[in-house]
């Protein structure tokens, strides 16, 4: 059960992944070459009788949107059978937010090609995102580095951004675990997002075939009903 994180170099994806998976702050972040993976254990529908535990793999795909096409082709191999996308941008750097459109095109192209939808490069199309079956989440990092006075303006801008993608958004600081503390609104949004991804993956199979979703059973062990470590 796979989710891909996309974003420019230096926005803080690795710190974010570490925070999400290990509930700890990453001490010495260094550059990500290629792709690094981490696993988060998530309780689907926590607190209800239907609670189940799932593994969620977070694939942190490094690099920049202007990379050489050889790097892009290599990255494309990671986009197979993606169940959800987290777009990460840096709140202190406007360009990283603008690049998110190109990032999402790069990923969504992979899955949309089988249905024959042609996308022109660089321009995004709202209808394309409305049609999109893959759940998206937009996360803005380095919130602590934005001065109080500018915060409102920055947050309005990112709200528009999330709307364009038809996605939820979370703004936080990866060096401070309290932003994702249990019960906070951010944690709730995150939980809901993961739940949506799990639903789309496992419960929408009957009936409507989602185009471009190859049926992959490679990552066995995605569903766990009861847990014990032996």
């Amino acid at each position: 059960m796979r989710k891909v994180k996309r974003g420019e170099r230096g926005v803080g994806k690795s710190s974010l992944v570490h925070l999400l998976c290990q509930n700890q702050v990453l001490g010495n972040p260094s550059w990500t070459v290629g792709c690094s993976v981490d696993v988060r254990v998530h309780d689907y529908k926590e607190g209800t009788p239907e609670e189940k535990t799932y593994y969620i793999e977070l694939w942190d795909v490094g690099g920049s949107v202007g990379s050489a096409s050889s790097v892009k082709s290599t990255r494309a191999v990671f986009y197979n059978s993606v169940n959800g996308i987290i777009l990460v941008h840096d709140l202190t750097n406007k360009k990283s937010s603008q690049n998110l459109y190109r990032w999402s095109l790069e990923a969504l192209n992979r899955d949309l090609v089988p249905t024959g939808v042609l996308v022109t490069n660089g321009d995004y199309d709202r209808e394309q995102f409305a049609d999109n079956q893959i759940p998206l989440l937009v996360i803005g990092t380095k919130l602590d580095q934005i001065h109080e006075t500018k915060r409102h303006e920055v947050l309005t801008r990112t709200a528009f951004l999330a709307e364009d993608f038809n996605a939820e958004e979370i703004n936080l600081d990866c060096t401070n675990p309290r932003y994702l503390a249990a019960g906070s609104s951010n944690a709730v949004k995150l939980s809901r997002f993961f739940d949506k991804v799990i639903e789309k993956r496992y419960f929408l199979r009957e009936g409507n075939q989602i185009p471009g979703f190859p049926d992959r059973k490679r990552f066995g062990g995605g569903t766990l009903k009861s847990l014990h470590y032996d």
Partner: protein
Amino acid sequence: MSFLIDSSIMITSQILFFGFGWLFFMRQLFKDYEVRQYVVQVIFSVTFAFSCTMFELIIFEILKVLNSSSRYFHWKMNLCVILLILVFMVPFYIGYFIVSNIRLLHKQRLLFSCLLWLTFMYFFWKLGDPFPILSPKHGILSIEQLISRVGVIGVTLMALLSGFGAVNCPYTYMSYFLRNVTDADIVALERRLLQTMDMIISKKKRMAMTRRTMFQKGEVHNKPSGFWGMIKSVTTSAPGSENAHFVPDLTLIQQEVDALEELSRQLFLETADLYATKERIEYSKTFKGKYFNFLGYFFSIYCVWKIFMATINIVFDRVGKTDPVTRGIEITVNYLGIQFDVKFWSQHISFILVGIIIVTSIRGLLITLTKFFYAISSSKSSNVIVLLLAQIMGMYFVSSVLLIRMSMPLEYRTIITEVLGELQFNFYHRWFDVIFLVSALSSILFLYLAHKQAPEKHMAP
């Protein structure tokens, strides 16, 4: 009166260059970053503008545009400003931005940046001692002192870049060196990469589950930290003896995961390399590719010739006295018997030759700087790196002026000699030859090793 007209022409051209530098900065260098410190952009554009003005003055010298005395005045003024920027402003701002990044010293930024600048000046001055670049009759604060040192650094840079470029150019252009890459190779490598990722994932799943169970059982620290942590957790959790099994397992698994992650990174880089080679193979089949291939052969001959000439110059301790233009004209007139108006043609040919040299060196430098910038910059250090690049660019262009003197006929050299003072120009040419030779030979060695190592990796099953 004519002085005013000349000055206004110069100033207009300077503004044009400034605008070009600004655009280059915005569109190319900083296209992924937000510009917050306009100082950096201004400094970069100003350095670029004044460097280009120097080249413009050389061209004017050859074409005899503008009044001779106003040219001389502008030369002097331009040189003073550039030296001021390269020795005072840019290093100071580099120090300032470095200090701004370090949180501890934030309060006394100015003080520390002044200290850094003084250190820079000390080493900059010391640089001049081992080199025989000046005649001893100059004072301390003369232009010659500063230019000579800037020249040394710049000439070293030029020779390094030139040596590497001379070797790398035929290597990249010629398809003889292209390794044979098939689609099957790429698919196989991708499969290995994904398999490695699978293994990493399964190990991480185990680790995540372990941590969760330990957490649920009420363990205080959910991850053993280091050697003592491991010992402590093993001994203090004696009652819950099943925990003792988990803790050493975690560190072991972590080590395995680290090794696998390193492997996955290497595989990723290799796959990207294969894709790049495949693209180059396809490109070489096109018309443009064939053209570049042919150029590559041409350049390799040129490169060998240059290395040969550099060796001869050093071994026989000679510095070329005549420039290529006069030599070429001599040869055509004396040996081939073609008569033509020497003065007229020498002016035009040297204009074209010098123009080509200038344009290609500017373009080459800007491209190299851009690539370098993309490779190493991050959002924190982008300002410092751009300023470093501006410094390198300034020094590079100043030394180009020094060296270009050799390519011009005698009558055009006088202005440079006058303005720059009595530098030992011969030293610079010798120094260029030495560094060029060293750089070219080490690039050949480096590329040879890299080329040999690569096919072995792919041949393995």
